């Protein structure tokens, strides 16, 4: 058993070590005669890349604060190992699969000259009118989205999976779920993109895909031992609050960075992001105050997240007033979804589906009703011709959501079975009781609790 595990890791290491041998020598992309570098747009995209990376420790803290003391490091490892694993996979082939030209009937993209990011040196692209930036920056910015998406799923099966199984799962998931979806929605020749689906910063690609996969995983892997009879209290809500704060800050990069420019679109995206997050937070604590007479800090943090998730697909097109509406709606539906979960009794431990899945779908669908006038009269006409209306767009949005839900849930289920049957995913009872920190990592989150 231990042996099997070792050889598995060995393989991985060797793979990594041998990779550079296979590298295509970085061909300098000829900078076309018309390249006009926009150092301001690049500056913002570099910043956005850093901000989205900041979301990963933010998420790690958010989740780590909610689990029990014995699982605090194991939970952080879920986010941090995504930085390591997806960070490497994205550089090797993720970018090529997501943003290369369509292959396999459009299932994914492929561009062998972009393996190992090798063909990007010297390549400038105009991602928005006038916004020429190095393709490297775009690849890195997008890579951060690939990292955070599988990390989000981890909340659904917190406190009860093997580290090995988790690593294998996210590696496979990014290859067969994330990269294709990303290609469909954001590559210029992706079929959902061509359909005209609006997904500014990842409502479908990031939040719905992770939310629905989380639900499937929670159902497949089953409840934590003791749930729901034993109370499983958060070990450190201070971390959760700090995590929520970092997520909010980082989300400016996530959403406003998705304009891939430093212009009016960027400004609008930042504005609605800020407004939706604030409204989501306010709405959630207001609901709590009505429901229980007390507003909680976890409620405020959850409301921030709901607001940020709902605005993610919508940040390109809605008005600030629309952001207020969406933020309010998101907190209501996510709050309701969590109450429902408690009734149904399945154990989506940190409510990934309730927050990301539900608010993500809400955003992707409801954004249709809050699109600013100018979009209808200009962009919509340019894209679809005269006569395109709310109901047309609603149909497109619903299609994109449905495709994402079906694809992500089916493929995730297959992957779950595969991982469970090979290296094992669900933790055995002894190690689950002892806690992931000690039994999987040989560590101890808070040494300060012992005397030393």
């Amino acid at each position, binding site marked *: 058993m231990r042996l099997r595990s070792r050889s598995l890791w060995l393989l991985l290491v060797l793979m990594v070590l041998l990779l550079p041998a296979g590298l295509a020598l970085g061909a300098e992309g000829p900078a076309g005669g018309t390249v006009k570098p926009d150092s301001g747009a690049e500056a913002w995209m570099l910043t956005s890349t850093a901000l989205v990376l900041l979301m990963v420790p933010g998420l790690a803290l958010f989740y780590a604060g909610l689990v029990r003391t014995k699982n605090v490091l194991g939970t952080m490892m879920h986010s941090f190992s995504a930085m390591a694993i997806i960070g490497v996979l994205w550089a090797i082939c993720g970018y090529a699969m997501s943003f290369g030209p369509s292959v396999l009937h459009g299932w994914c993209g492929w561009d062998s000259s972009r393996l190992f990011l090798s063909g990007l040196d010297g390549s400038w692209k105009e991602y928005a009118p006038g916004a020429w930036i190095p393709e490297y920056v775009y690849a890195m910015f997008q890579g951060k989205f690939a990292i955070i998406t599988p990390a989000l799923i981890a909340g659904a099966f917190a406190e009860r999976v093997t580290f090995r199984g988790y690593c294998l799962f996210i590696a496979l998931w990014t290859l067969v779920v994330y990269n294709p979806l990303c290609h469909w929605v954001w590559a210029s020749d992706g079929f959902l993109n061509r359909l005209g689906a609006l997904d500014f910063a990842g409502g479908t690609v990031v939040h719905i895909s992770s939310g629905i996969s989380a639900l499937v995983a929670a159902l497949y892997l089953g409840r934590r031992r003791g749930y729901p009879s034993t109370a499983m*209290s958060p070990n450190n809500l201070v971390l959760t609050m700090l995590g929520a704060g970092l997520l909010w800050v980082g989300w400016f990069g996530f959403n406003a960075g998705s304009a891939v420019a430093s212009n009016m679109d960027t400004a609008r995206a930042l504005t609605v992001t800020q407004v939706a997050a604030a409204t989501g937070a306010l709405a959630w604590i207001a609901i709590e105050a009505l*429901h229980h007479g*007390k507003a909680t800090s*976890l409620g405020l943090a959850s409301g921030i997240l709901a607001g940020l998730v709902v605005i993610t697909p919508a940040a390109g097109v809605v008005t600030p007033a629309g952001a207020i509406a969406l933020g309010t709606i998101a907190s209501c539906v996510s*709050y309701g979804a*969590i109450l429902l979960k408690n009734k149904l009794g399945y154990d989506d431990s940190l409510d990934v589906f309730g927050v990301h899945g539900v608010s993500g779908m809400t955003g992707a669908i409801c954004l249709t009703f809050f699109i600013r006038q100018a979009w209808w009269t200009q962009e919509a006409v340019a894209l679809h011709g005269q006569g395109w209306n709310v109901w047309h767009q609603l149909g497109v949005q619903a299609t994109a959501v449905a495709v994402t839900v079906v694809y992500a849930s089916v493929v995730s289920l297959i992957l779950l079975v595969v991982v469970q049957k090979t290296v094992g995913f669900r933790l055995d009872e002894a190690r689950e009781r002892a806690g992931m920190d000690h039994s999987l990592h040989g560590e101890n989150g808070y040494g300060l609790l012992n005397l030393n």
Partner: protein
Amino acid sequence: MKLITAIIQPDKLDDVREALIAAEITRITVSRCTGHGRAQGGVDTEELYRGQTVMPNLLPKVRLDIACNEAFVEITIAAILKAAKHGGGEVGDGKIFITPLEECIRIRTEERGGQAI
């Protein structure tokens, strides 16, 4: 000599400490513990977690250990009883346990017995 161990509510620690000092009991040892009493302990102990009311398995409590000579036992108990109650006494207010203490040694001076308390 007796060892008096009291389990009280955390929000009463300051009151009890002051009552003890007023009764001239100045030497105490305090530690954090958690407990489980009758009917899962008292009003308003539940917590909230995402819209759900949660009853913790174990509630935070404070433990006091006081070594004292026989003469002080009832004084100490009276001080604790007065200061540790919420209003006229609520579920969760706690317990006092008394065990025999055979010897007490002051590390600094190596004195033993009653005068070392």
